[in-house]
């Protein structure tokens, strides 16, 4: 169970969001919505501690994550705006590194199969289209058995069939008891997903349970 208590983000000019409170239970999918600059990415980055200067508290199974952020982060798979992949390395070299570093190498064939990457394994990443690069990045989700997925605009550059693959994957994760937080401009049509608009937290406090 992931809970955010009164998270507030202020930059030097304005308050990005104020008193964000929500709880996501096991098996929950929460889609964070809002226009550009509403703080979706920042909120996602606050959870693993990539942005620290926040007011408020984040708890994981009722334990403050700051007590042991390194252990907490082992529960997380994070997909950011950009693909954390090296264009000079081939698809398989990139995936192998992340499988060995954070995940389990035994899960690599399944990840490759799920995202249908078999034909491009030896291709260097820089020769792939943005959509395929995004597929490779998303396949990293399957390399480890983490409980919490943080996805920042995961559908960027994806065609409709890959969006369906991603949707299926997120739904399967939720069925499996995982928690998925997605920052997105558009709701990508996930079954049983709860939506919250960060603009609602601009001037008032809302409590939200997904």
């Amino acid at each position, binding site marked *: 169970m992931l809970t955010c208590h009164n998270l507030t983000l202020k930059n030097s000019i304005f308050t990005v969001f104020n008193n964000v409170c929500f709880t996501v239970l096991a098996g929950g999918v929460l889609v964070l919505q809002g226009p550009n600059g509403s703080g979706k990415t920042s909120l996602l980055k606050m959870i*693993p501690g990539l942005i620290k200067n926040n007011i408020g508290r984040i708890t994981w199974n009722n334990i403050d994550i700051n007590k042991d952020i390194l252990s907490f982060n082992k529960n997380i798979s994070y997909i*950011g705006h*950009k*693909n*954390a992949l090296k264009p*000079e390395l081939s698809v398989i070299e990139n995936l192998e590194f992340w499988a060995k*570093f954070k995940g389990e190498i035994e899960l690599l064939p399944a990840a490759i199969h799920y995202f249908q990457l078999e034909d491009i394994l030896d291709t260097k990443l820089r020769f792939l289209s943005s959509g395929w690069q995004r597929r490779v990045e998303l396949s990293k989700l399957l390399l480890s058995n983490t409980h919490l997925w943080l996805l920042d605009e995961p559908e960027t550059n994806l065609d409709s069939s890959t969006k369906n693959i991603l949707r299926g994957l997120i739904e399967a994760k939720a069925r499996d008891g995982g928690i998925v937080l997605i920052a997105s401009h558009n709701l990508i049509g996930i079954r049983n997903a709860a939506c919250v608009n960060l603009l609602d937290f601009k001037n008032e406090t809302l409590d939200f349970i997904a």
Partner: protein
Amino acid sequence: MKHWILLLKRELAYFFFKNGYALNILSLFLMLSFLFSLLIPSQETGKAGIVILLVQLLTTTIFAHHVLQDDYKDSTLDQLKISGYGPIFLITAKLFGYWIFNVSVLTTGTFVYLFLYKIPVDQFYLQFIVLLIMSVLSTNISVFSSSLTMKTEQNGFLNLLIATPLSIASLLYAASLLNQTGLDNTEEIWLDLKVLTAFCFIIVPTTVFACSYIISEIQYNS
């Protein structure tokens, strides 16, 4: 430890086999050595060593931004930071990788350069040891300066501006050591080498902690 070695291997693979970094740094090293050597008469073998020290600092610093900035730009650094390993774990693997890369590439360049200068064997050993110690210092200082400028574009020159003053004390000391002709006074040379090594014991932990702090505090790669 297994994951530390994995990260180290990746750094080495990235530096040696991708993007032609090894070839670039070696070419720059030889080119700068040659240009500097035009200013020094070939009899002044002690000064040849000083040229190598200077060029080593220049090349190491100019290429240092690849250690952290590449990972910062494509958000790999974010993912490494949340992989459950602390910043010291990450920075030591990266520093060690860059040091191995520097030593191997620059050693090749040094052999070529010293061969051209026909340095006597006994002086060559001394120069090589000094160069090895200085490579530790220049690697650490250059990575520290590049961590400060990680968010800026085209930061090679800026790195030099930061790294040069930080290296000046050890550089001058090493230069004076290399300027001693012959190896008659072995005891004094050993003492000087020990002092130079002591610089490493101060600089290395300081830069490791400083870089770790910077990468743990650096925020937002949107």
